[in-house]
């Protein structure tokens, strides 16, 4: 049962202490500006929403988020209230008096931060004038057909206007830090700077506009990073104005940050500025007071997936469910950006390997990627119905059997085994068996696809021939819809499903951060990622032997596609060869990494960025030399050590025969001992004020 989390980290106590003095937050205002504040459009929403808690803990009443006002969002997510500070109220009133609508309230998420929301539509009548101002400022014009860009300019102009009014009120104290996210907020930064508004500015890009476009266009991106003529690429893709806004914001910001090392490389080439700080994305990690509760959750949820598999593969259940591993890939349906191409190719190789090794392990692979469908297909639903019918038949026979057994015992005799089931019972069972015979293979997809013939996953499945044949050791289930606990087919939500699986596989090509493997990690599920994803880079940097901790990092940057496929195949094959005990140990280690992904650790990078921005904007008041040098580089961070006990990796534990039972697993392993060793290797924890005791985490906060 999930319980509240205590402040003490459960399995691992150590993260390095930051020897920075905390900022004098009572003399500062922090504003965080993003298009997705209270407005879920894409991934930035998750970042901002989960980070709010730790920022509020640090800044209290002096922290404000700013976003666009949409009536529906406001009604459902915000509780209106009065601004706590007179200066903010005056600044808001000044906008209101000029005919623009501004709203203030508390965002109803964890930490309940203050939000200031600007009505875009209500201020649209200024658009022409503001376009003129932007034009005079930097010579960037916005095409009138690009509605989003025009909205962003209105938003940015309102923000800059607000800051002007606010800083006129505040004069020198408190100083203002404004943290802008993504290009949509960029105009606000550029305009604020051009009007010489006295504040420290930070600009964070989560992915570059151009990088995303180039990768989506199947360009060999990372090998040609330095060769692109970026002005031309942006111009040819009709996004030149957006690209200019983004670059202008990057150029004007006091501090520029991005979310991962790989995006830093990208930004260096696509935006021509090296990020000052890398600010990785975190999660609010849910901890259970019971040790290894996540292992119990794994087994209960695994049982649910097994039920589904029994139905889906009825008539073909000649594999041992106890020796069946569940792999999955999930996310937006971007076939090559998410690495589904590499994954499918590797699965075909894995199938071959498992067959030639005569392995008794079966792998069922789930593709959870929403595509256009016409709802569930009959064959899948029938599978679940058949399973239910067999269950009912077995149950009915069992009842009769039990009754006769009971009666026989009452008479004081051992029942005659030949008579305990009569002909009727056999008839019922035979009828049930005949009814459940199937002449087709178990379906690859659970839904009727609209673009069946051109769907990239299905066409590749056809190419590699993984049709769920009896002798295939790799079976594929393509679920082209997000999971839901009300589904008649697989009634689980995403979190439950992830917990029930054994391995998440995310061999992405373009993934500035990548929450999916992170979510696996904090649930104690091993995952495959790549060194092109922000998450993979981060783990490579912080963990000495990531695969021992259940983070397999495929090299897609310096290897050819074929080599990457081989590497991924090898990872999966070795995973299949682990014993159950080895997998349990690996999950424990994986789960131990979750502290690393907690905002309470990762939030410090944001703290550092703010400090740096202050020292640049107000060099007289805030001197950087009193601060500890930036902890960005690898050497300054900490690394999880290589586990002391023999890692569960196959190189050490390949057995001469594929038939090895858990009993012959003789690796020395002591969970407590190992956790203690980790603890000693790592410095004391970094804490950000007290967490209110008994504060419950909401379930399902992992997005998706």
């Amino acid at each position, binding site marked *: 049962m999930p319980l509240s989390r205590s402040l003490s980290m459960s399995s691992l106590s150590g993260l390095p202490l930051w020897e920075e003095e905390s900022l004098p937050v009572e003399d500062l205002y922090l504003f965080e500006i993003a298009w997705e504040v209270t407005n879920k459009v894409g991934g930035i929403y998750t970042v901002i929403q989960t980070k709010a808690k730790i920022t509020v803990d640090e800044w209290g009443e002096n922290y404000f988020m700013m976003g666009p006002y949409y009536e529906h969002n406001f009604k459902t997510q915000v509780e209106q209230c009065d601004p706590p500070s007179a200066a903010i109220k005056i600044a808001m009133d000044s906008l209101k008096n000029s005919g623009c609508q501004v709203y203030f309230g508390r965002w109803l998420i964890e930490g309940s931060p203050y939000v200031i929301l600007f009505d875009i539509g209500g201020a649209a009548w200024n658009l022409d004038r503001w376009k003129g101002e932007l034009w005079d400022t930097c010579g960037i014009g916005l095409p009138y057909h690009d509605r989003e860009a025009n909205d962003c300019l209105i938003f940015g102009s309102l923000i800059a206007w607000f800051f002007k009014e606010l800083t006129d009120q505040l004069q020198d104290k408190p100083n203002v830090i404004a943290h802008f996210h993504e290009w949509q907020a960029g105009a606000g930064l550029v305009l604020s700077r051009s009007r010489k508004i006295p504040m420290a500015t930070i600009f964070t890009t989560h992915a570059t506009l151009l990088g995303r476009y180039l990768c989506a266009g199947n360009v060999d991106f990372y090998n040609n990073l330095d060769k692109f003529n970026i002005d031309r690429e*942006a111009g040819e893709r009709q996004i030149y104005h957006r690209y200019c806004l983004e670059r202008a914001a990057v150029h004007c910001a006091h501090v520029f940050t991005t979310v991962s090392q790989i995006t830093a490389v990208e930004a260096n080439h696509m935006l021509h500025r090296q990020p000052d700080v890398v600010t990785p994305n975190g999660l609010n990690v849910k901890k259970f007071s019971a040790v290894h509760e996540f292992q119990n959750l794994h087994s209960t949820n695994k049982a649910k997936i097994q039920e589904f598999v029994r139905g889906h593969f009825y008539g073909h259940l000649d594999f041992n469910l106890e020796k069946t591993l569940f792999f999955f890939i999930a996310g937006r349906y971007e076939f090559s950006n998410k690495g589904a191409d590499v994954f499918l190719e590797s699965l075909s190789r894995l199938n071959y390997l498992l067959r030639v090794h005569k392995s008794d392990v079966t792998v069922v692979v789930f593709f959870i990627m929403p595509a256009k469908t016409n709802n569930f297909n009959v064959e899948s639903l029938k599978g679940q119905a058949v399973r239910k019918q067999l269950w009912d038949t077995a149950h009915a026979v069992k009842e009769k059997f039990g009754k006769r057994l009971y009666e026989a015992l009452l008479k004081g005799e051992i029942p005659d085994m030949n008579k305990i089931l009569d002909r009727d019972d056999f008839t019922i069972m035979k009828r049930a068996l005949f009814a459940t015979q199937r002449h087709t293979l178990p379906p690859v997809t659970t839904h009727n696809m609209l673009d069946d013939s051109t769907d990239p996953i299905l066409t590749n499945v056809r190419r590699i021939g993984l049709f769920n044949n009896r002798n295939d050791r790799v079976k594929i289930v393509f679920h082209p819809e997000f999971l839901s606990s009300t589904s008649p087919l697989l009634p689980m939500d995403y979190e439950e499903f992830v917990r029930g699986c054994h391995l998440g596989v995310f061999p992405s090509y373009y993934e500035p951060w990548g929450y999916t493997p992170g979510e696996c990690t904090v649930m104690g599920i091993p995952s495959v990622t790549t060194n092109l994803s922000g998450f993979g880079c981060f783990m490579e940097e912080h963990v000495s032997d990531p695969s021992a901790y259940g983070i397999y990092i495929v090299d897609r940057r310096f290897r050819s596609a074929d080599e990457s496929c081989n590497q991924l195949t090898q990872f999966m094959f070795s995973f299949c060869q682990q014993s159950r005990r080895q997998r349990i140990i690996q999950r424990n280690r994986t789960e131990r990494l979750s502290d690393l992904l907690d905002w309470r650790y990762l939030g410090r990078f944001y703290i550092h960025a703010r400090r740096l921005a202050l020292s640049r904007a107000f060099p007289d008041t805030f001197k950087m030399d009193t601060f500890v040098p930036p902890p960005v580089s690898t050497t300054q961070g900490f690394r999880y050590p290589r586990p002391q006990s023999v890692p569960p990796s196959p190189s050490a534990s390949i057995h001469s025969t594929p038939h090895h039972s858990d009993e012959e697993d003789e690796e020395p392993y002591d969970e407590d001992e190992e956790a203690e060793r980790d603890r000693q290797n790592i410095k004391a924890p970094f804490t950000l004020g007290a967490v209110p005791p008994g504060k419950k985490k909401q379930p399902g906060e992992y997005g998706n």
Partner: protein
Amino acid sequence: MISFSFLLFLTEADQAFVTLATTDAYSMGALVVGKSLRRHGTRKRLVAMVSPNVTREARLSLEEVFDEVILVNVLDSQDRAHLSYLGRPELGVTFTKLHCWTLTKYSKCVFLDADTLVLCNVDELFDREELSAAPDQGWPDCFNTGVFVFIPSLETHGQLLQHAAKHGSFDGGDQGLLNSFFSDWALKDISKHLPFVYNLSVSALYTYLPAFYKFGHQAKIVHFLGGTKPWHFRYNQQTNQISPGDLDRILEQYVNLWWREFYSHTQQQVIKADSHPDTGLTQHSFVSRPRQSEKKSAPAQAVSTLQTSSPPLDTQGTVAETQTKEEERSLELRLLTLDEVSSEQPDSSVQTSPSEQPEEMHTHPKDVSGPEAEYSAYADLHNPAPGQGGTGREPEAAGGSPTPSEEPAPEPTPVETEEEKQQHRRMWEEGHADYMGKDAFDNIKKKLDRFLE
């Protein structure tokens, strides 16, 4: 003169949009058609055909927007038309419309009914062949003749007249005639079927509302089919709204848009009539302030010291003033004022008078410079937000009204650079930034560095 020739270069002179006004009321519509085409930066010529019963005043006001205003008269046209007409007098208006085929100085034309409203640039229509048109909502195997692409030709014109004389029109109007003449439209070549968004009948919305919600934002030309035309509604210029409740919301929004378009041009003329009926040269004032937006809830104080040379801000006061002036004027009054304008300028032949040429060349960039001003009104339409007023383009006129003694200062060089700047900005706004040349980011960076130091 440099800018004038530049504009000529932009205009593709052998292709034209054509509209037709047969009454004074329809000429209001024609005015809006022309104005909305200009606003969206068309590069084609604009031609208005007017029938003899249209008053000279209305015709003159059309001349300010259109490149060419042509008087068409069935009875003194070519003999064959005359004869056909005598045989079929009930087709009078239809014959007038057929006149468009005689505009042979143009290689291709697009006809727009006077009760249409253009929402974005539709120059791509000229890529189509004769005869391209959108299906009629009532009988989709027939095309609607509110919007169609044709190639002027005297031969076709003659055949049409012959056809009319012989077969008449099955619906008594031009649509029946053209549909039976171009009878292979329905089956032969699908590329001649214009998408419905080029001729969106507002009255069709009720029959398929979900489709409108799905595709309505793509509408390019709205056609106010049916007996009630936008000019039949009373428009309150203070609120920028027609009296609410008269009709459903969607139609109401489009009618509001139509009125805003109407006023974006005509109010300026009204003021001209009020303040200096003799010169008509106040148009110069908006050259120096080409992009101002009206302020909806403007403060009430009257700023009357505005000069044409003042920065393009703070015009709210006068706008409010102008609006109050306009407030109680009903539609009929406005029409009257329209008449006054022209009657007080008896010899204002705008197109020909050499002294007025500079004015003409300034009005053009102004007319086409601000398609984005429509943006907010358009956003209003498709994303209605409470309390959001519309945008009008009245302030240009407001700048002129309190300065009656203003001389038509020629100032060629500053105007020119301003002109170029406008042109440059417009290129961006049409998505044609010169990203490999003067708009390269390094140049933008230099601009940024000016204030970052």
